[in-house]
């Protein structure tokens, strides 16, 4: 607050505010309702709907002003509900009704100010010329695609020459701010399903209800501020002033004695398996996408819908896409059978649609899993043993017209089948993250053939790694379901804690040691050490061994060209003496 604050009185209540705000905002802070149509926080006040008219007195002079753009000042006395104000609002609403009386926002206003029968009739011109869209397009999107044209009673909002604008960036900001719904995005329904992606529809949103941390995230590629330099409405509206566009990614250094690697997995991208038509055929979606679709916080509010907005009458769920497949991953992803059963259950419950499960074999190994499978059988889900082979568009003209056809071999019946369905869900594999290699290097881990991190011992040390103090948890180690993940996480945490709680650690006496007097600083040992235990001290120009990392393997001792490194307890002399003792 640069200038000192000012005190004003609104409806008899005194309030102290900063000097650069308008009456409307001050009234809001006092909880006083003032109707407005053309005001939108973050956009320049326009003062044209005049709904926010209030009475202002300075000295003996009393006049009506618009509260949205009248600055506050010391000693200002504002009245928001006098007879003069009420009369003005009533007539203004009647004038609005004459333009567009059928829209909800104006009907509600009419109710609020007590207009029951508008005397100038009820028009149906949707645009009330509040200018929000024009300002949004200019100030938020910086696109200037729409503007005012003509004047007086002929004034309209339009694009130049009423043609499709070449500068429109399809951001939809205009439609978003339009209070009467006069602007709509053609094919918006379709657009949403196209983008149904897992993602939120706005450039800033909490990614999912379960997201950790559960805070909004800005998508710089979709954000108008980053793409056009405009908007900034989220920052304007954030009461906590938490939005900072200048914020950059930064590296944080944390000193830790132990590390739990829980980097998770990624899902298999089924578009490489072209036979399933993912990305090519509409209504072929992945299991994760289906999860978003049926989520109450998802883009459709939990309704399972096809791209055209109608509910499917039949759904095929194809198991083992990318798993148990020589071409992609030989392993079983362990979770797909169960979630596929859950999906079938949801479809049944929500739509009563027909569900096909195309499986190789059902792996319902966990506690209560088999019982759930039984329940689904009873619910009437259709199980076909045989992996889905191909998804194609239905042959036009017949029963398959407009549908997707799943081809498969029903190995129990021994027949080839074509199953026409409306929607295909691909139960895709869990795979190691594409950046697992970097993590592997960072922590000196090992990975197994399938790309997941390797534990120190499959039975005796399932959460430890080859590096002391580094533990594994969850799907970064191998695909696993939630109970297993939780269990492993608990194990890793307790292992880590047992080290931390001790507060100190006992080092083995055997480790390498550099004699700084002999070290030439050639750094040959730095690169060779498999445990990254040797670092170079640039000041002293010699290398040194971190005793807590060294495993006393002796590689450096053997490699040092100057003979500056010796293995404690395994010096040349000691070894020779040992040999001598043996030979004696």
């Amino acid at each position: 607050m640069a200038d000192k604050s000012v005190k004003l009185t609104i409806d008899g209540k005194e309030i102290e505010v900063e000097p650069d705000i308008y009456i409307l905002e001050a009234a809001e802070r006092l909880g006083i309702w003032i109707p407005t149509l053309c005001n939108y926080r973050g956009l320049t006040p326009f003062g044209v709907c005049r709904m926010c008219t209030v009475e202002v007195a300075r000295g003996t002079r009393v006049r009506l002003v618009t509260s949205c753009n009248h600055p506050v000042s010391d000693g200002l006395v504002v009245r928001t509900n006098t007879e003069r104000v009420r009369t003005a609002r009533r007539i203004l609403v009647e004038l609005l009704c004459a333009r567009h009386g059928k829209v909800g926002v104006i009907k509600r206003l009419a109710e609020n100010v007590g207009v029951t029968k508008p005397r100038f009739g009820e028009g149906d011109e949707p645009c009330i010329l509040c200018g929000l869209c024009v300002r949004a397009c200019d100030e938020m999107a910086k696109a200037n695609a729409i503007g005012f044209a003509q004047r007086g009673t002929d004034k309209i909002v339009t694009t130049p020459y009423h043609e499709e604008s070449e500068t429109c960036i399809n951001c939809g900001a205009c439609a978003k701010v339009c209070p009467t719904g006069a602007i709509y995005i053609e094919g918006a329904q379709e657009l949403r399903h196209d983008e149904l992606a897992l993602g939120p529809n706005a450039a800033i949103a909490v990614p999912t209800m379960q997201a950790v941390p559960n805070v909004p995230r800005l998508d710089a590629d979709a954000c108008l501020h980053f793409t056009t330099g405009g908007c900034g409405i989220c920052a304007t509206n954030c009461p906590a002033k938490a939005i900072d566009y200048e914020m950059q990614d930064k590296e944080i250094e944390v000193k830790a004695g132990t590390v739990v690697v829980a980097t998770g997995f990624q899902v298999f991208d089924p578009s490489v398996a072209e036979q399933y038509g993912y990305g090519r055929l509409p209504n072929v979606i992945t299991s994760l996408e289906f999860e978003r679709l049926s989520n109450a916080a998802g883009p459709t509010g939990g309704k399972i819908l096809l791209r055209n907005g109608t509910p499917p009458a039949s759904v095929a769920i194809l198991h083992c896409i990318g798993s148990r497949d020589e071409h992609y991953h030989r392993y079983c992803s362990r979770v797909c059978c169960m979630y596929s059963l859950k999906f079938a259950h949801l479809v049944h419950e929500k739509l009563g649609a027909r569900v096909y499960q195309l499986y190789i074999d059902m792996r319902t190994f966990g506690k209560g899993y088999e019982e759930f499978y039984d329940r689904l059988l009873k619910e009437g889900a259709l199980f076909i043993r045989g992996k889905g082979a191909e998804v194609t568009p239905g042959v036009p003209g017949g029963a398959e017209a407009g549908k997707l056809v799943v081809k498969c071999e029903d190995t129990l019946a021994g027949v080839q089948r074509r199953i026409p369905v409306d929607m295909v869900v691909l139960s895709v594999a869990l795979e190691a993250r594409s950046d697992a290699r970097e993590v592997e290097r960072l922590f000196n881990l090992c990975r197994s053939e399938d790309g997941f991190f390797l534990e120190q011992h499959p039975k005796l040390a399932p959460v430890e790694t080859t590096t002391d103090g580094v533990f594994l948890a969850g799907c970064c180690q191998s695909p696993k379901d939630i109970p297993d993940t939780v269990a492993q996480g608990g194990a890793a945490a307790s292992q880590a804690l047992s080290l931390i709680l001790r507060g100190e650690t006992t080092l083995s006496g055997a480790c390498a040691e550099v004699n700084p007097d002999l070290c030439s600083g050639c750094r040959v040992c730095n690169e060779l050490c498999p445990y990254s235990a040797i670092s170079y001290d640039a000041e002293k120009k010699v290398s040194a061994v971190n005793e807590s990392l060294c495993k006393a393997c002796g590689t450096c001792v053997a490699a040092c060209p100057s003979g500056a490194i010796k293995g404690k307890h395994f010096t040349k002399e000691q070894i020779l003496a040992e040999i001598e003792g043996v030979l004696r």
Partner: protein
Amino acid sequence: MATRTAREPAVDLAPAEGLINAYVESREATIALLQDVQKLYGYLPRPVLDLIARRLDLPRTQLYGLATFYKAFSLVPRGRHCITVCTGTTCHVKGAPHLLATLERELGCRCGETTKDGRFTLERVNCVGACARAPIVVIDEKPHGRLSPAKVIKTIERYE
């Protein structure tokens, strides 16, 4: 205001370029530039507006808004002669509505339109400030005062 006609002739942009160059320095002269363009071409041809938008880096919405806000501009070609009927208060009470009705009937076009043969554009203006000579009709910047419906018909006959 009508915005399109079928017959929009091809436009030579070269003279417009010259005008724009003269204005490139001062942004605030957009309206003066449009007035010059209007004078040069008789209207604001669309390619010229597009050119101005590009050269002066102005949003097309702004130019279109200006062109439709101010009465001095037209987005469609005008006739060879411009008949402007003054409908200021004095002219109104002295019979300007009759003059306008007579002209509309005589020319076969409504106010704001151009005759089919491209001879006249009929417009009106709210006062030319020669009220003592009301009612006034201005033809191509030349004012004619104290007109009656019969006289105005005779007057326009002099313009080919």
